[in-house]
Structure formats: structure tokens, C-alpha cells
């Protein structure tokens, strides 16, 4: 016990540019160790799940342990679909990043390395369920089979964009595909997901909601509001925390402080919480399925911390080499979700390098073809402007007089 003088603590990452990546503080539990808890587990009993980490795939690509066993229904087709979803996601991200670099959009933001989370989660949902995503969950849309033209149109802010150029690229919105309109203000939608889920319960519609938040944004007030109200009213909501270790330039320790895990913080609210290897497609799928079943059965909210790593820059406005070692991503101990699932499928004999290469080429062609079509509708460098009068559409359901006067002043 050191007794001294009060001095502040300033958490920082273990390594900075020029230093060697250091993940020695990250505990990576063996896969297959944690059991599948009963669906009605409470916060108290969820302690080992909130402190540990649910993992299914081992380093050799084998699916091990009780969560793997419980996934009997994750048939080969489903697994292959997961790989394809992730491949598509990755190619789309790459293409849209390039498009931004070519000046075709003003902004882009990738989810590279985190594809398993949204892809596997979405495939466990049913029509009518609603995600309240952040800007880094485009993978939910991919696995919902959202039309690619709409997704790309939003990036180019052209007339393929269902929201007609209203928002920053990546701020998608699709009621039909269970993807709530994204707000640029972090955190706000976490508690809205709880409200939506309350409406589900009150109207007995059997639907569930899923809130999404980044590790950095767990610091926002709405994280607290959401956990608190979920704990009080017990609505059918899954509160997802995507811990990708970074929030722009600040490492996750700035948001975690002395907390052991974000799942533990959620548990402090009396919400049962689990921590999961987010780079393990099978673990994500298994835990998502479990959580969806629990929630839909009226057993109350659950929080899930998905442990992953933000491989790419925060966005096209960011250069991570200014604040972390250049090769940190490559050293991430949980590996790459695409590579891990691919190895597993090949190991199971339901996939091959050849099929992989062929699928990749096919997807690439499909994506490039759509992209070219969508770009015909206008890009940032080559815009096809909407009528400026659109600015006034949808501010209210009915255009009030003062907006009519302003539209006239504008010349429309």
C-alpha cells in the first residue's frame, strides 16, 4: 500500500507510433471454456461471462465447447453465407473507400476487422426487429440483404439514396431492413432502442430491438440512460457494445477507466452481460441467437460486449499512424474474422481456397457493376443535384407557412 499525495491518472495505450505493438495486457481465454447459461440468467450469475470471453473457434479453426455444440442448427449453408456476407462487406468497404479517395464521395468509414459482429448478429434477427446502429455497423445491412444500390447511393448522396442526400455518407436509414436512421450524435440512439423495445412490449408484437454503441461512446450519457431504463422496465432489447479498442485517437482505457470490462459496467446496472470474441463468427452467431431467443421470450434485456479491433482508420478524415503503431492491427491477438471463418470452413471440408477465390471474384464483379450503375446517378465530383426545395421536405409532415415563405424566397 503506497500512501502519498493525490495525483491524477491519465490512461494511455501500451504503445505509440514508433513503438512495438503490445497486447500483453489483453487476456485471451481459451475457446470453449464458458458454458451456455440458461436463457433466464440474471446479472449476478452472469459474472463469469462478463469477465471472461465466449469463444468458439480455436487457433486451428475448430469449433469447440458448449456454444459450438449448441449451434447444431448452424448448418454448412448458414456458415458459408456468413463468410460470403463478410467477404461482400469487405469488398464494398474497400470500393467505397477508393471512391472517396477518387473524390467521388465526401467521406467514408470502414468496419474492417469487425465484419463478423454485424453480419452474424443480423442473420439471427427476424423481420420487424430493429437495430439502432452506429455508423460502423453497415455489416447489419449487408447481412439483411439490403439493396446495394441504396447503400451506395447513400454514400454518393445521389438519387439512389433513399434519404435523398440528407445525411453524411454512412449515416444510412432503412425501416424495412431493420436499420434505424443513424444520428451523428454518438450514443443518443442507445436509449431510443430501449424506448422502441418498450413499445414492442406494450403492443405485444413479438419484435425486439438492438442498440449498438462503440467503446468510446459508452462514456456518453445515453449509455447510462439506456442501461438504467432497460434495468427498470425490462423490455426486449439487446444492448450491444462494440469494443474495438479505439475511439478516433483515444484508446479504450480513456472510456473504461478502472472498469474491468464494459460488460461488467452493464452488470452494475443489474443487466446480465456477456463478453464475446467479436472476431469469431461462430461465437457471434451463437451468442446472438441465444440473446435473441432470451429477449424475445420476455426474459428481459441483455448486454453484450463484442471484443474486436478497429483495423482501419477511424474514417477517411483520420490517420491512425499518428497515434498508434503502424502494424498494431496485424498483431491483434484475436486475428481476422474472415480468415478465421474461412479456415474453419475449409477444415470442415465445406469450403476451399479455390471456391474462396472464385467467390471473391464474383462478388467483386457484382459490386463493381452496381457501383458503376450507381455512379451514373451522380457523385461528389460529378453531382446531379436534387431540387433545393427538398431541404424543406420532411422538416414537418405538412409544410408550415414560414417554410413556404422561405422556399419562395429561395425561388421555388
Amino acid at each position, binding site marked *: 500500500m503506497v500512501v502519498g499525495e493525490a495525483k491524477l491518472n491519465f490512461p494511455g495505450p501500451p504503445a505509440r507510433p514508433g513503438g512495438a505493438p503490445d497486447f500483453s495486457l489483453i487476456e485471451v481465454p481459451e475457446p470453449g471454456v464458458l458454458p451456455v447459461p440458461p436463457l433466464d440468467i440474471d446479472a449476478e450469475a452472469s459474472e463469469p461471462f462478463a469477465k471472461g470471453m465466449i469463444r468458439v473457434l480455436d487457433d486451428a479453426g475448430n469449433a469447440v465447447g458448449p456454444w459450438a455444440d449448441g449451434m447444431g442448427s448452424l448448418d454448412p449453408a448458414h456458415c458459408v453465407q456468413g463468410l460470403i456476407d463478410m467477404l461482400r462487406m469487405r469488398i464494398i468497404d474497400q470500393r467505397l473507400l477508393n471512391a472517396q479517395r477518387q473524390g467521388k464521395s465526401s467521406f467514408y468509414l470502414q468496419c474492417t476487422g469487425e465484419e463478423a459482429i454485424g453480419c452474424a448478429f443480423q442473420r439471427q434477427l427476424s423481420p420487424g426487429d430493429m437495430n439502432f446502429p452506429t455508423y460502423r455497423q453497415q455489416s447489419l445491412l449487408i447481412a439483411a440483404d439490403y439493396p446495394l444500390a441504396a447503400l451506395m447511393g447513400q454514400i454518393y448522396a445521389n438519387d439512389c439514396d433513399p434519404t435523398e442526400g440528407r445525411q453524411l455518407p454512412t449515416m444510412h*436509414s432503412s425501416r424495412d431492413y431493420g436499420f434505424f*436512421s443513424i444520428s451523428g450524435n454518438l450514443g443518443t440512439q442507445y*436509449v431510443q432502442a430501449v424506448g422502441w423495445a418498450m413499445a414492442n412490449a406494450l403492443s405485444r408484437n413479438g419484435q425486439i430491438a438492438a442498440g449498438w454503441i462503440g467503446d468510446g461512446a459508452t462514456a456518453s450519457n*445515453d449509455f447510462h440512460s439506456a442501461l*438504467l*431504463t432497460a434495468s427498470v422496465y425490462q423490455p426486449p432489447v439487446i444492448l450491444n457494445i462494440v469494443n474495438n479498442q479505439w475511439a478516433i485517437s483515444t484508446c479504450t482505457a480513456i472510456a473504461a477507466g478502472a472498469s474491468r470490462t464494459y460488460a461488467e459496467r452493464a452488470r452494475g446496472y443489474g443487466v446480465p452481460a456477456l463478453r464475446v470474441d467479436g472476431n469469431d463468427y461462430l461465437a457471434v452467431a451463437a451468442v446472438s441467437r441465444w440473446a435473441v431467443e432470451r429477449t424475445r421470450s420476455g426474459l428481459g434485456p441483455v448486454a453484450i460486449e463484442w471484443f474486436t479491433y478497429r483495423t482501419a482508420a477511424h474514417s477517411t478524415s483520420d490517420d491512425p499512424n499518428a497515434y498508434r503503431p503502424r502494424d498494431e492491427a496485424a498483431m491483434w491477438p484475436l486475428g481476422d474474422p474472415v480468415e478465421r471463418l474461412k479456415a474453419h470452413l475449409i477444415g470442415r471440408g465445406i469450403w476451399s481456397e479455390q471456391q474462396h477465390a472464385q467467390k471473391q471474384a464474383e462478388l467483386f464483379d457484382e459490386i463493381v457493376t452496381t457501383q458503376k450503375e450507381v455512379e451514373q446517378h451522380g457523385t461528389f465530383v460529378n453531382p446531379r443535384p436534387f431540387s433545393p426545395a427538398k431541404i424543406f421536405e420532411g422538416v*414537418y409532415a405538412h409544410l*408550415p407557412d*414560414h417554410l413556404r415563405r422561405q422556399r419562395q424566397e429561395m425561388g421555388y
Partner: protein
Amino acid sequence: MPTMTMIEAIRDALDVKLADDPGVVVFGEDVGFFGGVFRCTAGLQKTHGIERVFDTPINESAIVGLGVGMAAQGMKPCVEIQFADYMYPGFDQISQEAARLRHRSNQQFTCPLVIRMPTGGGIYGGQTHSQSPEALFTHVAGLKVVVPSNPYDAKGLLIAAIEDPDPVIFLEPKRIYNGPFYGHSAGEAAGWSSRPEAQVPEGRYTVEIGKAAIRRPGSAITILAYGTMVFIAEEAVRQTGIDAEIIDLRSLLPLDHAAIVQSVEKTGRCVVIHEATRTSGFGAELAAEVQEACFWHLKAPIQRITGWDAPYPLAAEWDYFPSPQRLGRALIRAMED
């Protein structure tokens, strides 16, 4: 027709809509079992059940945030913020979320949410139970902002607000919850039964959002007022004998521009009164609009009678609260120009 106080009229509006529409839910701090610190929801939980009328934790941004989510999913939440002074923690959810959702999503998602809150001073509430933040709401595109000044309007506007497809801020001037108020030194407080506007029809009716009411027709000068200030204006007219036209705006956003312009073109003079602090208060918007629209008709500058630019003080409440005397002096000044 029954006579009601503002509180009873508000409660009746909620009761009517809870019965009418299964999507309506009412919640906020102390609104459930107890029925609200001002009793606006008293009895509603008993009548409509705990799933429709319930208590929340003390977190105004959670109250609004839950409301946004529920509204987006198709319900009609009508939430209470215990005092307008406590809306600030919820201002992000109000101004960036509720107000923006329809536009941002190109109408995929909407937010038919009503946020009620008692506003204004005159009840010895000190700086955190007396504020009038209406100007802040009126700067937010996507919101509607209404302020009833009597029981009839309170019920009709609240029903209209709940039926509105967009988010509505419903400000309740707490000084006149139980009776009209003509200023601190203007004799005994009167109950609502003394006023015809306290005759409140049973059942559903609406007062259109966006329409002002002429409380007193006049030809000499136009007074633009809302909430408690409508009665301060009446009293100032009584004291000065000036033939002022008193317009009760009722809705600040959207504003009844036509009614205002018509009146000022007729009178050629205009005074604006509100309780909120002066700088960037809603009176600024009114004066700016009126001078632009009625420039060639104006015979005197538009004056603003407002709360001073200071926190609302406890001991000096009546030096802060805009009095009929102060308004009267402004009317006389305007008539002299």
C-alpha cells in the same frame, strides 16, 4: 359545460386521448401513482393502468429518449418534464433527435412525441423552478411549440398536440394553473371560474396549432403575449385605458404571422411581452418579424418587455416578473411616439 382549472383541463385532455387511442402513453417523474407534482396526471394510472401511465427515473434525457424510440415505433408518448428548468439534460434528445428524425430519415421514421412542462415564474420557485425556455425550442427546426393561456385552450391544444404527427413542446404557464394572474400587486388572485375560457367542453375537441387568438380587439397598439402575460396585458390595458389589441399567440412555432401582421398594420404600434430573459428571447423573433413585415405601417419602435438578463431571483421575484405597470409604461411611451 363544466368549469375547469388548467390542471383539470390538461388532465382531461390526457384522459380523453388515453381512452381514445391505445398508442397514447404518459410518463415522467412522479406522474404515475402520485399523479405529478402539479397533479396534472392524478388518477390517470388508476383509470388507464400502469402500462399507460407510469413513473420514470429522474433522467430527463432518458424520458425524452424513450419517448423518441416509442414514437418512432408508432406510439404516441406524451411525457412530462417536472419543471421546464429541468429540460436541459434532455435538450440533446429534443433538439437533435426528436426534431430531426423525420427529415433525416426522409420520412421513414417520425416522432409524434409531446413533451409537456410547467414554465414561468411567479410562484416563489427561485431560479430553477421559474424559467421560460421557449426561445430555445423555437430555434429548433422540426419542433412545434405551444403555450396555452387558459383551460379551454390547454385542453384543445394538448389534444391537437397528441394528434400531431410531429414533436410538440407543450409549455404550461404554472402561475395560471389554478387561476388567471393579473400581476403581484393587482389585488386578490382569482380562480378560473371567473373566466369564460374556463368553460371546457367534455370529450374530444382541438384548438388548431399555429393560430393565435385576439383576446381583446383594439385599435391603438398591438400587444403580443402568451401564457401568463396575456393577463398582465389585460391588466395593463385596464390600468392605462389604452385601446390595445391583445393577441395571445398560443403557438410560437409555427407562428400565426398573418394575424400579427394584420393587427400591426391596423394599429401601427407593437409591444411584445414575455417572462424569459430579454437577449435572444422569443420577443426578439417577434420584433424582427414585425418590423420587417409591417415596416411601412409602424409609427413607433417595437418595444420588448421581458425578464431581465439575469437568473430568476427568489427574493426579488416581483422586481423581475414583468408587471402590468412596466407594460403600461411601455404602452404610454409607444403612444407618445
